[in-house]
């Protein structure tokens, strides 16, 4: 039998596939379609210190091979998530990763401290790359010094492994990765969405009420692969890769580029069963291309 297991800081993944944050809520809706214990892990929707209502609608627009979204971090706040959402996910045999967001460093710290006391949460994903909120988020993700600072503070506030989620909206992704590595990050997740816009012809206005939104889906996969390749060459942290994954072949491509595990976002919307299907296909795909385990394929792309 093909070995799909991956061990990462804080995470014992039975397979390398998990939902990307914000595309799976807190799992309840998709648990109506399949047993969440099939998943390697679940990355929860972003949590902030207090409830966020998010942006006005429309919040999504379809694009060629992808979509734009500007949800604006709508979430019930960290306390409610710990009280009501974490216990639901904890029923399943899968690892729980909390996605932490905030407008200020203080808020990131507060959310991290609260999740630190929730034993079911195995690791943090530090969302310094949300392009859809006015304050915080993206500026932490585009300025290496701020990224370093917020990572340092969150590391100090907790003893759980911290994976920093990188934004592709930068010209030097390696500088960002190195900055958070220096700050003590335990891993990276990449990529978040790329800022985009769509103009609605009849009204001549941006279709998304927030004007801009984050581009996700198949359209961004080559960018994710390129960025993982660049970071993998120069940074030693484990990487959870994401951006446009739809098939087991896509997963293998991410592994080859240097990702240790992967997350699937937008593809869930088209096919709610996409992750169990990928997990089911993955052994055959690995075998087809001559690998004997997931571990065997990581970073095996040939660049010389």
């Amino acid at each position, binding site marked *: 039998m093909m070995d799909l297991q991956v061990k990462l800081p804080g995470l014992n993944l039975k397979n390398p596939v998990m939902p990307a944050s914000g595309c799976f*809520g807190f799992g309840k809706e998709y648990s109506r*379609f399949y047993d969440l214990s099939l998943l390697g892990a679940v990355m929860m929707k972003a949590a902030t210190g207090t409830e966020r209502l*998010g942006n006005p609608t*429309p*919040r*999504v627009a*379809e694009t060629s091979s992808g979509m734009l*979204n500007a949800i604006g971090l709508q979430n019930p706040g960290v306390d409610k998530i710990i009280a009501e959402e974490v216990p639901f996910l904890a029923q399943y045999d899968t690892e729980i990763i909390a996605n932490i967001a905030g407008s200020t460093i203080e808020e990131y710290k507060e959310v991290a401290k609260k999740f630190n006391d929730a034993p079911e949460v195995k690791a943090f994903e530090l969302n310094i790359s949300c392009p859809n909120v006015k304050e915080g988020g993206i500026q932490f993700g585009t300025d290496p010094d701020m990224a370093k600072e917020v990572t340092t503070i969150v590391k100090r506030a907790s003893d759980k492994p911290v994976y920093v989620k990188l934004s592709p909206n930068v010209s030097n992704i390696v500088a960002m990765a190195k900055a958070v590595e220096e700050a003590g990050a335990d891993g990276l997740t990449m990529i978040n969405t790329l800022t985009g816009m769509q103009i609605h012809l009849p009204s001549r206005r941006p279709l998304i009420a927030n004007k801009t939104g984050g581009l996700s889906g198949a359209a961004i996969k080559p960018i994710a692969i390129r960025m993982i390749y660049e970071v993998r060459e120069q940074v030693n942290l484990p990487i959870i890769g994401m951006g446009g994954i739809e098939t087991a072949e896509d997963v293998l491509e991410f592994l080859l580029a240097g990702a240790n595990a992967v997350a699937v976002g937008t593809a869930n919307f088209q096919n*709610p069963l996409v992750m169990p299907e990928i997990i089911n296909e993955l052994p055959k795909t690995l075998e087809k291309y001559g690998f004997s385990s997931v571990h065997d394929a990581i970073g095996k792309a040939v660049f010389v």
Partner: protein
Amino acid sequence: MRKVEMKLVYARQIAEDTIEMKLEDNYITQIAEPGQFIYIALPNFTLRRPISIADVDREQKQLTILFKIFGRGTASFAAYEPGMIVDCIGPNGNGFPFDTDKMEKVLLIGGGIGVPPLYYLGKKLKSKGIEVTSILGYQTAAQVFYEEEFNQLGETIVVTDDGSYGEKGYVTDIITDSFNFDLYYSCGPTGMLRALTSKLQDKKGYISLEERMGCGVGACAACVVSTKNEQGYLKICHDGPVFPAKEVIL
């Protein structure tokens, strides 16, 4: 709610840019209620398309949908031919609530492509002995559909914006104090719903809303609507698409 393959068994154009289809399956058709929708995947489109369930025949295991060719997705769907398989999630959302012991007369108000879900509702209500009156608004004569079908349910008034068929004007122009009903149900463009709910603010009613959706199952929080109470936003795909008219801010 499940992801199922439905078989397209019948398709025809019934008005300008308006298609009627019948789809067959063993699951959705057995549990669908009026006001729920199916969420349809189309090859080469990232997002699914939400389409209301316009009628259900549980014995034949078929449901009817009616849709307007609006953009590229619905245009590609309109080219499907009987025998083809349609990838659907459904039934999604919560339908129109009704307690037939507590009502005698209802008013259905549909605008354009908001008319379809009211048909299945009207049929169910009529079969339970409720008196149904319908006001159906369309832009122009060429777009009018299902007048005959609604006539079978009770008094039906057709209105067109340009007066090319039926009465001239908007559905809200037609509703006068002489209309006597316990409850109203409506689906149509947001502008129409806004005018209607303010005109009928003293009446109890339910409205079905449209918004651009992501997952369609309640996970991504794309299609939200503000509420008048403490609940903040509700999700149209999951908590709706039908809401009490007094609960939401349009």
